[in-house]
């Protein structure tokens, strides 16, 4: 009954901890590695036009809304005297700059930072089947002729589109193609033609206007990508090469073939894109993203605490991990330690002294402390005054070691000043009691067990990933709790018992 209760409780804890962890890691993208960096693309759209006489001007810029494969880290507008509204309509987002009185050369900027996120699939909804476009003759016949040829040579929408693009891009085109291709010179016009022809075959198709990403591009090109709906998903083709798949170095700016800008009250309007690639700590990006998603998690995380408190919690959240290790070492392996959680405290102390220095220093003080305690035993002091005397002597010893090591140019001793000396005194007292009651062998065994356990805990606590993960995902404490609960129901043998009872083992 108790066992089932424990298992159910542990399962609930694991479930809660894991789901929160997964939510934070997957959805919010909090990284498992503190040093992890994300490639961030910062794109700038520079809208420029000229207004000859003083008067009103208006500029529309189509801007990304849910770019698939990417996530927007942040965006901003440089409007200089213009009123800005961001218009979210079914056909996509638009930035609208407007001014009542202006003249001369005008420059407006829209800056956008994005990073790749393969989980994002912000495509358009499933389209309806297009009508066959009503073209003039002879284009209509050419279209129907071409599509029926292509249909004969293809099996489905995918192969149909490939075959069509292959013919459209043929350097020595057949008659129909050259007729249709005649008016379409730019990649955009060619892609529009492909959409029209696909509509001739009643295949829904759309254009995605994409910005070309690169290391550092002053003048990034805007390229059209052909998106074809196969009934389930959008599939993408490079209209110029006919290659299937969305090219990795393109950023899907907007859907549709409508021009990116629309200026009224000006002339010579154009939009230019520049792209800069940078690396930013994943941690920061994730937090920004969480905030932009409206998640309350960042506000309730340890990262929201003042820095000084954070560093304390960085240690505190590691303590249960150390305690779990103690549980494993004691109840599963059977290592004996002085005090139950003494090794955890010592491991924390090691963080300040460094391992080797701390180990050396610790051993030195304990040996000296035990000696002094043995001597005080002769004076027949009462228990509490004796403890206090040991404490005082330990402080004196520590002071001496610190001063001596500083004189020798070793700095380990100095940081030891923060060493939790109460722990040292308690350890000395407990070890000496064990020494008296059970003998030197037991006292030394326990002392060594404590040190070994402390070193192990220190090493585990020192792993950067562990520290980072425990701090960023403190919900993992629930998992540790679950593991501890389950360990608490372990009634099997400890590893050391196999040696203790070896004489009793059955012949195998």
């Amino acid at each position, binding site marked *: 009954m108790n066992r089932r209760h424990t298992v159910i409780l542990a399962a609930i804890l694991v479930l809660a901890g894991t789901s929160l962890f997964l939510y934070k890691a997957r959805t919010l993208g909090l990284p498992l590695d503190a040093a992890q960096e994300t490639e961030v693309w910062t794109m700038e759209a520079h809208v420029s036009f000229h207004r000859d006489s003083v008067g009103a001007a208006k500029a529309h810029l189509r801007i990304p809304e849910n770019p698939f494969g990417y996530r927007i880290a942040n965006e901003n507008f440089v409007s200089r005297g213009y009123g800005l509204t961001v218009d979210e309509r079914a056909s996509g987002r638009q930035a609208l700059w407007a001014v009542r009185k202006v003249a001369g050369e005008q420059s407006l900027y829209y800056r956008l930072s994005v990073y790749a996120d393969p989980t994002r699939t912000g495509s358009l909804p499933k389209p309806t089947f297009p009508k066959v476009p009503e073209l003039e003759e002879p284009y209509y016949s050419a279209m129907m002729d071409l599509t029926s040829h292509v249909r004969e040579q293809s099996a489905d929408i995918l192969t149909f589109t490939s075959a069509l693009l292959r013919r459209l891009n043929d350097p020595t085109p057949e008659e129909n193609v050259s007729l249709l291709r005649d008016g379409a010179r730019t990649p955009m016009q060619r892609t529009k033609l492909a959409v029209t022809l696909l509509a001739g075959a009643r295949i829904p198709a759309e254009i995605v206007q994409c910005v070309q990403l690169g290391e550092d591009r002053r003048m990034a090109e805007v390229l059209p990508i052909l998106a074809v709906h196969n009934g389930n998903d959008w599939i993408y083709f490079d209209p110029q090469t006919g290659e299937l798949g969305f090219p990795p170095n393109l950023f899907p700016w907007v859907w549709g073939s409508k021009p990116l800008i629309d200026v009224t009250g000006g002339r010579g309007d154009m939009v230019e894109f520049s792209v800069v690639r940078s690396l930013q700590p994943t941690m920061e990006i994730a937090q920004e993203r969480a905030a932009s998603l409206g998640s309350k998690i960042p506000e309730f995380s340890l990262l929201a605490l003042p820095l000084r408190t954070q560093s304390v919690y960085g240690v505190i959240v590691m303590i249960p991990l150390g305690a779990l290790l103690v549980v494993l070492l004691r109840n599963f392996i059977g290592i004996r330690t002085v005090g139950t959680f003494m090794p955890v405290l010592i491991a924390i102390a090691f963080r300040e002294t460094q391992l080797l220095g701390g180990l050396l220093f610790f051993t030195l003080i304990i040996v000296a402390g035990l000696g002094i305690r043995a001597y005080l035993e002769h004076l027949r002091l009462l228990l509490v005054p004796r403890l206090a005397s040991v404490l005082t002597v330990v402080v004196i010893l520590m002071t001496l070691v610190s001063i001596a090591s500083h004189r020798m140019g070793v700095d380990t001793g100095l940081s030891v000043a923060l060493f939790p000396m109460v722990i040292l005194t308690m350890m000395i007292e407990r070890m000496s009691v064990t020494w008296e009651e059970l003998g030197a062998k037991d006292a030394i065994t326990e002392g060594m067990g404590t040190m070994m356990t402390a070193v192990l805990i220190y090493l585990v606590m020192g792993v950067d990933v562990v520290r980072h993960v425990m701090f960023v995902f403190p919900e993992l404490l629930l998992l540790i709790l679950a593991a501890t609960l389950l360990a608490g129901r372990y009634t099997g043998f400890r590893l050391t018992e196999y040696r203790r*009872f070896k004489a009793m083992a059955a012949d195998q």
Partner: protein
Amino acid sequence: MSLLPDLKSPGVMGINSRNGNYIMRYNPRRLFPLVDDKLISKDLAVKNGLPVPELYGVIRMLHDIRKFDQIVEGKEDFVLKPVHGSGGNGIMVIGGRSRDRYRTTSGKIVTRDEMAHHMENTLGGQFSLGGQPDQVLVEYRVKFDPIFDHVSYLGVPDIRIIVFKGVPVMSMIRLPTRSSDGKANLHMGGVGAGIDMRTGITTNAVVGTSPMQEHPDTGSPVVGLKIPHWDVMLEIASRCYEITGLGYLGVDLVLDAALGPLILEMNARPGLNIQIANAAGLLPRLHFLEALELDGMSVPDRIALGKEATNRDPREITRMAVA
């Protein structure tokens, strides 16, 4: 799994199993003081007519140390014990005195001052669990039955009986050696000899974990020894369950030459070495008893059941099958 020795089939009980499956299940926490506090358990035993060494007096605080002379007046020998001590720690056995000097049974001379210091330390909690302030009890020194003279080196041999819900299930006699400093503590190098529950005869003996036949100091055989008053001891052990209510209990008895078996102390967390001394695991016997309804059973029935449980040892089963 085959890398590790097979402790499962002999039914060895490990610490985790003892703590999780027996102590936690059968020993309610609130009953622990009944055995952890030797004054309470002594009182409990006396009230229920169970034999214990006579209490001479209690030193409850530093101030009481001056009463010490009054307590031991006219007593040639006595024992000092911490009320909350465990594992035989802090016990001082005085075998004789001459004016201000006392002689322990191990031959050490202790001055009045040294003895006062020992009492001060005990009161301060040196020998109690967790360093809690403690008390000192002064009691009758057991004149142990000479029958054990040839198998013990100084000190008092004692008999440990494990009692499960009133059924004595396993037992051993602990014999002091030179290396255990006269203490009957296996951990310190004492000899442990398993006792057959059915006959009261020792069957197997160990020092530490190594089997042996003779006492390391006296050279006398320790196997095949007949424990006198065996059935009385089993009865006392069984009744200890009734007075404490602890379902998994260790009862330590000594055999006084004149008074017979006396309860030395009881233990709510009895150790596991008894299995090594018996070369038998506790689990087969306990599993056998756990399947039975023991409540409301009489003491003689329980004792009979304890003897019966011995037959549950895998080795016994094999032997009976061969026969």
